[in-house]
């Protein structure tokens, strides 16, 4: 299959968005996908959008223990983010999305897909399978719904990496987590800036420190979006 089109603006004009009847996720047919603005990069991504049909996804995954467990945990979150932005793009972005908003969301999609594929490769045979997601509570036509969900995921991602960093024992893994978390924080601010221009973080990081959540708290917050059961019981606790 061909690559995602990555040219800025081209093919992403919001007024060319899909009609509301076609926008319904479950009504998406292969033909509709092929004619949508974005061509899929690989069959694995295609599968993400047809959850009930071809579940390569396991019903349950175990993240494992030690550093591998933490990396699988990060991989799970990157899968979630990548799937989300891929779907946002696939559905032609929300109604009235500006060129700048599309540019940001498309960058986020590419970054998160790269993160996901990095973890998959880095973990190799230790990698958990592909998770199945449920974004049915998101109204992908609605700007506020799409951006607020993005904000939730980015903030959660930052808090997750900050909480997970101290659980790692290998300094190389810590550095790579650090390389990713600052990009997630950059994303979070860009999304904030779209929602409330020039107010980003003014009323969020009021204590000068980012949040840091333990894995259980993060997974609970993400649970409504994740169909696959995630067993995190072997993750390091402290």
């Amino acid at each position, binding site marked *: 299959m061909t*690559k*995602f089109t*990555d040219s800025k603006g081209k093919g992403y004009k919001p007024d060319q968005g899909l009609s509301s009847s076609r926008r319904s996720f479950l009504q998406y047919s292969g033909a509709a996908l092929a004619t949508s603005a974005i061509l899929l*990069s*690989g069959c694995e991504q295609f599968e993400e959008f047809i959850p009930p049909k071809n579940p390569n996804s396991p019903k349950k995954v175990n993240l494992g223990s030690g550093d591998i467990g933490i990396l699988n945990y990060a991989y799970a979150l990157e899968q979630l983010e990548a799937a989300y932005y891929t779907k946002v793009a696939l559905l032609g972005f929300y109604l009235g999305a500006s060129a700048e908003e599309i540019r*940001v969301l498309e*960058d986020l999609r*590419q*970054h*998160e*897909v*790269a993160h996901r*594929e*990095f973890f*998959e*490769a*880095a973990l190799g045979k230790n990698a958990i399978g592909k998770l199945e997601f449920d974004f049915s509570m998101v109204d992908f036509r609605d700007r506020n719904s799409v951006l607020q969900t993005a904000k939730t995921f980015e903030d959660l991602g*930052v808090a997750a*990496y*900050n*909480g997970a*960093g*101290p659980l*790692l*024992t290998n*300094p*190389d*893994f*810590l*550095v*790579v987590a*650090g*390389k*990713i*978390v*600052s*990009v*997630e*924080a*950059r*994303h*979070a*601010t*860009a999304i904030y*800036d779209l929602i409330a221009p*020039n*107010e*980003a*973080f*003014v*009323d969020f*990081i*009021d*204590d*000068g*420190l*980012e*949040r*840091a959540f333990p894995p259980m708290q993060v997974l609970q917050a993400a649970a409504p979006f994740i169909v696959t059961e995630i067993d995190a019981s072997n993750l390091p606790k*402290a």
Partner: protein
Amino acid sequence: MDFNKLFDSFNTENKSEEEVDIYMSRKEAFKKLGSLTKKVALASLPVAAFTMMPKMAFAQSSDVIGVLKFALALERLEYQFYIKGVDSGVVSGRHMDVFMAIREHERIHVELLETTIQALGGNLDGVPSMFDFTAGGVFPSPFSNRQLFLALSQAFEDTGVRAYKGQAPNLIENDDLLKVALQIHAVEARHASQVRRIRGRKGWITEEDYDGIDGFGATFMMASSAVYAGEKNTTHVGVEVTEVTTVPVMAVREAWDEPLSMQMVLDIVKPFIVS
């Protein structure tokens, strides 16, 4: 004791009128802030965590203190930069909330680091406290030339992100300290993203940064090339990411921020340090 000191800084009782005024103006910056109680509770946590840590954890703490003093130098530089920036009028009205918030974050970082260093038995000797933001006249008028102010802000924030990232492995044996360093690190990244966007750039480090921060000649370009040195890297823990993804290489470069060594950071900020 340190906990109390921080708490006092938010407590307007028993303060002179002038102190209260300073406090209230700070409060205005956070007009949408929730309850003050919440702020005090949150701000106090990390210090409490540090002071509760057994001294034993810092048996070989000289390296750790060195890292914290290094971080303090950068935070003081940033804090002073934003004090002057906000006071000088170089910040436009619509960006004032952002820069007042950044200034407040840097103030908290400075206070947190000073308190922590002292709580760990270290001192603040040798940590720079006077700065020259013209870098000896190389960058004239940073507080009247808005474009220069914003360019310097971006450079300091992006450098700060890289600096904390580079030191994270040196804190790996001190989980509480590492956690707080990561919490500061991500806030610097938020600042960087916001300032970059104010400048009409992407929030993340991109190809265009390798051309330097334009508008100020070759000097700034050279200075900023050090700020972004190595950011094109696409290999992480042995994985060449461009080989495992269909995402364009430019996006792969954007998707990972790179660390800088302490020495590389010091070389970047040295021209701004007076003493």
